[in-house]
């Protein structure tokens, strides 16, 4: 009799766990399956097909798209995109960290206000904001006109249509995505730890480097991913601020899908990018776990 009771009780627990899993996991996962895995499936399916002579797709199986992806030109563009995105991410970190650190030093009311001020620009259209940089920086722009008027320079500076301008555009677009995670990591550090380090003989600089910085690392990693991932895939900034002279992976994929109307090859490039970004995500999660120590879950 006892075992029956025990088994019944265990089944109830199992049923309850299954119920919980279905309630929480089913909606999200089925939505993702229908609207992402299936489209991803299509894209993956396309990678094995050949481009129709006039565009569209022909159902002739081939692996040629994959070999083409290994072409040194595309590898070079991938590397260049990674360099540009990485320098934008690094700049975002160099500017974003001190700003986030400064915000944590404010009174809680002012912290709110500054956080909102940082998010607010996001709500004007991205295209116009990027375009505003052209009005500011091109040879006939406000900056050059101003500098010429006050005689600092006589020839307008050529600031735009260089990789530097693309980095500036990406930095401008995604800087808030670096500041917010760092802020939330910094604000959670127990201030007593910094005082403990100083009390143990560390100079304020040493205390910052050995206590505050490592503990802010998870925030830095999340922030860097939030800046790097969209930067690599962005094609509007290279076009507007790069003057079409800087080609990034985003432009590459777009050109394949639209200009060459070569969906199979565009799909291969897209899949490669997803794999690369997922790898990056796992590395970040791994480093995060080792820094935070064995926190629960």
């Amino acid at each position: 009799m006892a075992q029956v009771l025990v088994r019944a009780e265990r089944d109830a627990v199992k049923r309850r766990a299954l119920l919980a899993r279905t309630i929480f996991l089913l909606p999200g996962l089925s939505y993702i399956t229908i609207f992402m895995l299936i489209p991803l499936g299509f894209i993956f399916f396309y990678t094995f097909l050949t481009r129709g002579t006039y565009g569209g797709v022909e159902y002739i199986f081939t692996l040629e798209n994959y070999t083409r992806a290994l072409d040194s030109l595309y590898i070079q563009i991938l590397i260049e995109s990674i360099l540009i995105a990485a320098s934008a991410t690094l700049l975002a970190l160099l500017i974003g960290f001190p700003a986030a650190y400064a915000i944590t030093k404010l009174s809680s009311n002012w912290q709110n206000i500054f956080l909102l001020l940082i998010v607010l620009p996001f709500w004007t259209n991205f295209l116009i904001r990027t375009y505003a940089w052209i009005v500011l920086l091109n040879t006939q722009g406000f900056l050059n006109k101003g500098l010429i008027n006050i005689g600092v320079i006589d020839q307008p500076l050529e600031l735009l249509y260089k990789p530097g301008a693309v980095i500036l555009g990406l930095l401008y677009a995604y800087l808030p995505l670096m500041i917010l995670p760092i802020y939330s990591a910094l604000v959670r550090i127990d201030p007593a730890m910094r005082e403990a380090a100083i009390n143990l003989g560390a100079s304020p600089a040493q205390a910052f480097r050995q206590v505050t910085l490592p503990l802010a690392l998870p925030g830095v990693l999340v922030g860097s991913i939030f800046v790097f991932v969209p930067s690599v895939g962005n094609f509007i900034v290279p076009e507007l601020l790069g003057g079409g002279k800087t080609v990034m992976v985003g432009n590459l994929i777009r050109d394949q899908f639209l200009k060459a109307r070569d969906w199979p090859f565009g799909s291969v490039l897209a899949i490669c990018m997803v794999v690369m970004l997922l790898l990056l995500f796992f590395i970040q999660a791994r480093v995060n776990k080792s820094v935070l120590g064995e926190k629960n879950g």
Partner: protein
Amino acid sequence: MGSKLGWLKLPLYGVLLFLYLPIAVLIFMSFNQSDAPFTWSGFSTRWYGELLASPEILIGFKNTLLVAIVATLLAVILGTLLAVGLARYQRSAALEAIALTPAIFPDLALAIGLLTLFTNLNYALGLDSVIISHALFCAAFVTAIVRGRLHQLDSSLEQAAADLGDTTVGTFFRITLPSIKPAVIAGALLSFTLSLDEFVIAFFTNGPSTPTLPIVIYSMVRFGVSPEINALATLVLLTSALIIIIAQRNLKVKDQI
């Protein structure tokens, strides 16, 4: 205000100057008499008049707001449930990667994939297909933020509630939801922001007769940004600033992020 900032004032104000310089240009240009982008020829509110007289921009704005709001609602529901499920009931790195992929999937490839799906289901494209697509990647961000918050919260809360005889759903509404409310709000804010600005997926999954604002702006950029759009951007900026100031009064944003 934190007077003890010392040299930290430099990066803080530097960042704000950097973020708002183009915005200032935008606002400045919206009052420029002529539409030549590089020359100032007198103050005028002409473009605000022209804005009200150009239906496709206003319709586009209305469509964008509608998409952003509904997509955010859908994303918050799906994203929060999935986050709780992943944090409390089914821990698996593979599932978490799948939950995040929509956010890092190159938007053009996702757009083409979705377009192929909709056309094959011969599902008539319209605002609803845009909403479905936007909810997909917005939910991924909500899941990430709420999952992050759950990561720090003590999971024994839910076990305690269950132990006291509360049902799974009851526990969610009475215990879990209140404790993650700030993160859900932060997730909603981010989703709304992302959907508002999204162009690529919106272009490919949209019906021909319901353009969203980014689509309208992108197709008009051929002649440089026409000042009506600067006027609209200025209005959007001012209204959102107002909403935030009011919301910020009673809603503590600080501890959500």
